[in-house]
């Protein structure tokens, strides 16, 4: 059985919606700007008017990270052609990756009760600050009644969410799974990381932080064909059967050293996809871990074209950055059958290498705890 991606969506400092996102990514234009007060470079989502982007008014007071998740998910669902008004929501799942959640709401809620006492405690701020608030909102907004899970962690949890969503589909617990990760910038996050002395992004004096959301729809494909399960898809209101990319493999692992984790997970993912390293045409990495990801890529995949990680243009967006990377990699896979360039190179310039339909993209990301995740995407 194959697992395929049928829709993607993104809200990012590079643009709202994947067309704007990909256009800026392909141009290699950074959206990071110095914030002198915080002593960091920040990339913020701009032009985000939730009331114009999402018609369901129940979420107009939701935290920014929840609103980013809703808009990215709506784009992904629309691309997959699914109509949740006619679909059996019990056969759909949600897996959300979260790193910090609605920290702004938590801070505001805390400020309310600590300065004004019980009367200053807002029930809305409290309920929207819990870490599964984006997941609950996605379930509520789209009528999703199957398994709903919120995974917590660093950048790697975005990939872990994809892996877990794929497992739910593979085991037949759901027909399709919405996987989302979202983060909103907050000064307390930046301050905390600066206090910890964690410098994010190499080559610059100031660390960089970003925000946004990425979303993908995972469904079952038919064995050997790579087409999605037509019956389930049509039952979901799908008007056309189109898989953007096949998720050929998804693995996470941890070993005593980060290098061991990264190498081990690449080997496991290749084995899971029945591929050799020479079959990998292009590779994208999370863009962190002090070069460990690049070392692994250099050792195991020396001939693969390296795509520009989103992080280099938007800073550390934690698990949301990982989903943005996965969306970008998926779009690159989808573009493989065009005659145009397929992505961007490490120098920010557009690639001219042509990738044929038999080849594959590997996505690699390292986590905080020497954990590594690897996904392999290929044309269906």
């Amino acid at each position: 059985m194959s697992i395929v991606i049928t829709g993607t969506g993104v809200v990012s400092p590079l643009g709202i919606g994947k067309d704007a996102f990909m256009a800026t990514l392909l141009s290699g234009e950074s959206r990071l700007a110095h914030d002198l007060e915080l002593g960091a470079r920040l990339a913020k989502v701009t032009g985000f008017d939730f009331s114009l982007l999402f018609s369901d008014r129940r979420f107009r007071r939701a935290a920014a990270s929840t609103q980013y998740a809703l808009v990215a998910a709506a784009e992904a669902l629309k691309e997959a052609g699914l109509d949740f008004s006619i679909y059996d929501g019990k056969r759909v799942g949600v897996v959300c990756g979260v790193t910090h959640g609605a920290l702004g709401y938590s801070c505001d809620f805390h400020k309310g009760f600590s300065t004004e006492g019980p009367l200053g405690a807002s029930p809305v701020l409290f309920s929207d600050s819990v870490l599964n608030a984006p997941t609950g909102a996605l379930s509520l907004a789209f009528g999703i009644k199957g398994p709903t899970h919120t995974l917590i962690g660093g950048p790697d949890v975005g990939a872990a969410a994809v892996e877990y969503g794929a497992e739910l589909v593979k085991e037949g617990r759901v027909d399709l799974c919405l996987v989302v990760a979202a983060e909103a910038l907050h000064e307390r996050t930046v301050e905390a990381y600066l206090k910890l002395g964690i410098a994010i992004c190499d080559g610059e004096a100031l660390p960089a932080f970003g925000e946004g959301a990425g979303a993908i729809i995972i469904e079952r494909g038919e064995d050997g064909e790579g087409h999605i399960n037509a019956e389930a898809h049509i039952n979901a209101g799908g008007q056309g059967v189109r898989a953007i990319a096949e998720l050929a493999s998804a693995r996470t692992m941890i070993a005593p050293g980060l290098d061991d984790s990264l190498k081990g997970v690449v080997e496991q993912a290749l084995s899971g996809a029945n591929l050799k390293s020479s079959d990998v045409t292009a590779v994208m990495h999370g863009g962190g871990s002090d070069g460990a990801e690049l070392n692994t890529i250099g050792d195991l995949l020396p001939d693969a074209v390296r795509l520009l990680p989103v992080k280099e243009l938007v800073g550390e967006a934690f698990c949301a950055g990982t989903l943005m990377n996965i969306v970008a990699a998926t779009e690159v896979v989808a573009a493989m059958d065009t005659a145009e360039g397929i992505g961007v190179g490490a120098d920010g310039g557009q690639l001219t290498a042509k990738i044929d339909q038999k080849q594959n993209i590997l996505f690699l990301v390292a986590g905080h705890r020497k954990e590594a995740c690897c996904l392999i995407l290929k044309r269906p």
Partner: protein
Amino acid sequence: MGLDKNNQRQVVVTGLGIVSPLESGEGVDAFWKAVLAGRNTVAPSGIIDTAPYATHAVAQIRGRFDTAIGKDHLYERRWQAFIEHAFAEAVADSGVTLKAGDGQKAGIVLGTVLGGVAAGEKLWRSEGSNLSEGYRLSSGAEQLAKDYSIKGPVLTISNACASGTDAIGIAARYIAAGRADVMIAGGGDALSEFAFSGFSSLGALTKDLVRPFDKDRSGLALGEGAAFLALESKASAKARGARIYAEVAGYSSAADANHMTGPDREGRGLASAIGKALKKAGLARVDYISAHGTGTPYNDQMETLAIKRAFPDSAFDIPVSSIKSMIGHSFGAAGAIEAVTCIKAMETASVPPTVNLETDDPACDLDYVKGLAREVKVDSALSLSAGFGGQNAALVFTRAE
């Protein structure tokens, strides 16, 4: 050997660990003795300043950890202390050596709602310089993984008040799918002013006692604690001659898609989770249900309806109890503590009572094991959880053959 009807590996429980407000947080044996005795722990808080609030009742772990943590950090280090102790007890009880052999095959799933939010409160008041590590929800599982040299899957999940139940279910699936041989899974949360103030703002807190399913129930009391189960593949447990408490026979998660903070009034989401978990277990009924039973008006009525939907022929014959009547609602820990309850009920052929249930509610008309524990042969037990965001989860345990 060791495969279920779906050709997946069977998953069994070989170790239990718990820290609860009962008996100052002493382990499983003390917990079980006290819970069967129907001991109430809900009382005015000694850790949160509740003076400005209309309610003061919490189920707090008192005594044992005050010295262990030290008064300077008693507030913000409780969560870590609870999960460390419960985890250690589960590992020791199972006799499993996590570091031995192929280290890639042992993992952790920790469920928590607010984790180290008490540390976060200090950070937000700018009283701490390096508290952000303790505040991160994933730091708890990461520290356990480091302490025990665990190199398999390590997940932190935050599915609101279903987190503990989901953590066990997800961990069991890791084993069933062959991704791990041993998983230590459970949940933990600690009292904090953040949580107290939040539930108070929602009007969810009782002013005195927790009265699940009682006509005069007035709300929940916040509790705290942690519990873990050591899960293994049946083949692995048998190979090392481990004591097997029970099999994790079924698990399911389902969403209401109805409201961000309130449950589906008809209990459809919870009934869906129960139905799928029973189907996986191949059962039509169970011998005992550990209810979510928070003591809030909506939850208890919803849960009663869900049980009736899921067991149309036998709902009135199944003993159902809520230990939250004694230990309050420990949110992320609750599902894991109640999983331990199910397993001990199977082991000892006794089910705990629902205390403080004095006035019958026509809308809550099941057998709630009112007042006193009961001797019942339990070959199968169901643990239920529900939470914010419309989360519902159900776990089925059966006697391992």
